[in-house]
């Protein structure tokens, strides 16, 4: 994948040419129509790569040593334990919000305030909303190592097992295999809504700003809109991979 004329990976984070990426992703989808087998690509398709040097410093001996919150795999706490902590912190933050905000908080207003409070530099927490559920949750992206992992956490959060906020009885979401009526989408740094699973996990966690569990009918509209935005995103290798 690394051609002689292409910049090396690592410091600059450039990715291989779009066309190569598209071809590879297309193959892995298996070609079914999205509605029937709308499989969101999982870690199997994009092997998650954990380690990367702190994005802003070329060497840890540079003038500003990495903060604990910016370094992958640090502090060395087992991922199982981290996931458990992350869920609790998200729940606590959620309860804090409920106490602090008025009842009539629109979904769209929420994230702005929340991101000021929780999404400080280096924080991995992003807000998650599910269509039909009034209260959103928060999830720590850094505490997850793959799409599978993330989907599992989200399914637990919104499945209503611990039940503080989700009152409705819902079926298991199965967000990543397309068998449910919901799809997982995210808003990236540029404000566009994308389908989760398009890009390598490592890239995803640096660009995701918030998550939304969307009904499938709405999501197909997302596809059409995104196709139009494709031209604006020459260097952005993210692609939507389903047919509308």
């Amino acid at each position: 994948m690394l051609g002689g004329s292409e910049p090396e990976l690592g410091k600059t984070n450039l990715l291989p040419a779009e066309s190569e990426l598209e071809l590879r992703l297309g193959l892995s989808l298996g070609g079914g129509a999205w509605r029937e087998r709308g499989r969101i690509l999982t870690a199997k398709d994009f092997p998650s790569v954990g380690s990367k040097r702190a994005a802003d410093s070329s060497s840890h001996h540079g003038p500003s040593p990495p903060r604990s919150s910016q370094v992958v795999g640090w502090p060395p706490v087992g991922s199982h334990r981290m996931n458990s902590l992350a869920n609790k912190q998200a729940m606590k933050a959620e309860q804090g919000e409920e106490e602090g905000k008025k009842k009539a908080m629109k979904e769209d207003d929420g994230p702005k305030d929340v991101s000021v409070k929780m999404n400080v530099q280096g924080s991995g927490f992003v807000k998650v909303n599910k269509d039909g559920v009034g209260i959103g949750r928060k999830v720590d992206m850094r505490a997850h190592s793959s799409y599978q992992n993330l989907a599992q956490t989200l399914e637990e959060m919104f499945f209503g097992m611990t039940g503080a906020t989700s009152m409705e009885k819902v079926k298991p979401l199965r967000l990543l295999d397309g068998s449910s009526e919901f799809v997982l989408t995210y808003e990236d740094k540029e404000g566009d809504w994308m389908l989760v699973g398009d890009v390598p996990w490592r890239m995803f966690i640096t660009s995701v700003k918030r998550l939304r569990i969307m009904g499938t009918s709405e999501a197909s509209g997302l596809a059409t809109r995104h196709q139009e935005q494709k031209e604006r995103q020459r260097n952005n290798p993210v692609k939507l991979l389903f047919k509308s």
Partner: protein
Amino acid sequence: MNRAIKSRLSTSEMNYFPDEVIEHIFDFIASHRDRNSISLVNKSWHKIERYSRHQVFIGNCYAISPERLIRRFPCLRSLTLKGKPHFADFNLVPHEWGGFLHPWIDALAKGRVGLEELRLKRMVVSDESLELLSRSFVSFKSLVLVSCDGFTTDGLASVAANCRHLRELDLQENEIDDHRGQWLNCFPDTCTTLVSLNFACLKGETNLAALERLVARSPNLKSLKVNRAVPLEALTRLMSCAPQLVDLGVGCYENEPEPESFAKLMAAIKKCTLLRSLSGFSEVAPVCLTAFYPICENLTSLNLSYAAELQGNHLIEFVQFCKRVQRLWILDSIGDKGLEIVASSCKELQELRVFPSDPHDEEDNNTAVTEVGLVAISAGCPKLHSILYFCKQMTNEALITVARNCPNFIRFRLCILEPNKPDPITSQSLDEGFGAIVQACKGLRRLSVSGLLTDKVFLYIGMYAEQLEMLSIAFAGDTDKGMLYVLNGCKKLRKLEIRDSPFGNAALLADVGKYETMRSLWMSSCEVTLGGCKRLARNAPWLNVEIINENESGRMERNEEDEREKVDRLYLYRTVVGTRRDAPPCVTIL
């Protein structure tokens, strides 16, 4: 068992004994290292030892093949296998790197090995493997899975259904896809042999009725650890029909238990007079911990490290009465003050682990622990030999005091949360502090260092840490000399793992033979280059030198590699079976 083995004449008197006698003597030698040693004495002993070996420990599943294992130890009954390197716990190893269980089960089944026990750590386990396991080994008794992934509750259902003599099913911190099915129902009514059942890591719902029936028909059940889907009333019923429990992991408690429910729980707990070990509490209202007061004086092991709901004062109130506790795992919300109380109350303490409740310092509260807590513990607990301590800061003076108070450390793992942090009082590196630890603790086998450290700390480690077997280094050192001090000095070193430290090719290549005496070396975000790794691989064909690429999309194209390019992650290990064939595209084996 009668064997017509002609032993060769030798000067050793013991060879005049019949083999059965020698075998009987070997039965008393349990440690696998000792058994490895006696198998090297002579051919006769090697043969006797082979056939009498029932337990085998394999620290790296790629160091040997299942076929060779079975050829050498045909009477194998208990197997321990470890897969991914340790840093996989921190998401530094790609998910699909390797460590697959299936080839092992396949070979063991084909070889008709009478497998009874299987212990796995960081392996990729599939439902198919579990199904095959459950059908292939009639006497299978014990399955322990630690930090594994790749399977679902369907795999557990096979084990439950088919392993007629199952005694132990212990799932620790695995990533299991919970299909919320009925795996607990799959234990047949005839299954009454369970001694240990731990499914605390399962995230889905649990069939409470099936669980209660299972516990009720398991009179030998000593250890039960449930997941968070088991609420207070269910726990009460479970404890009522299993008052013989020695080890209990509790699930989820409601925030405000009814007084009646709470009273019933307390009554059930009081009857569990044999209870010695308590864990779980992952969603617990503080008041519920108080239900365990009646038995807390009996506890020898207490793990509250998942109890993020409990505030420091709740923890302190409980732990101070656990006067017999030997093993304590707790969150840093206990604070330095709390640790001082532990130090004055828990005189039997041998192992302490203090985990961070806020690893990324997001909540801006100041309850994390510092050097004060560690010094207090070292002063108050004379039997302490094992510590894992996550803290905000550490001083040289404190470490020197700790070393003086506790020369008996076997394991010393200190993690200062902020990388490169110096001694806050003197602004110096922590070389002297860690130096004091390795100098005083002559039996130290495992060490993790952190904070601001120069090459000097490694000079000390190389000089003094004679028994050191495992060393973990992060954000430390200045030059290749640091790594060289360790490689040259620590004769018993088996595992070395390094991240984000400026060690390069000179250190890597200085003594290639050293790696034959070690299990493995991990280096990530260091200064080693592709060229250096290639040279190493050429000079040491008995090593697997694996490069894990940042570029996820595929192997490096050979004609476009730049040998001066730094390697992101290097993992090398000795092996007798050469290059493995199951590596994913992101791994290049040189």
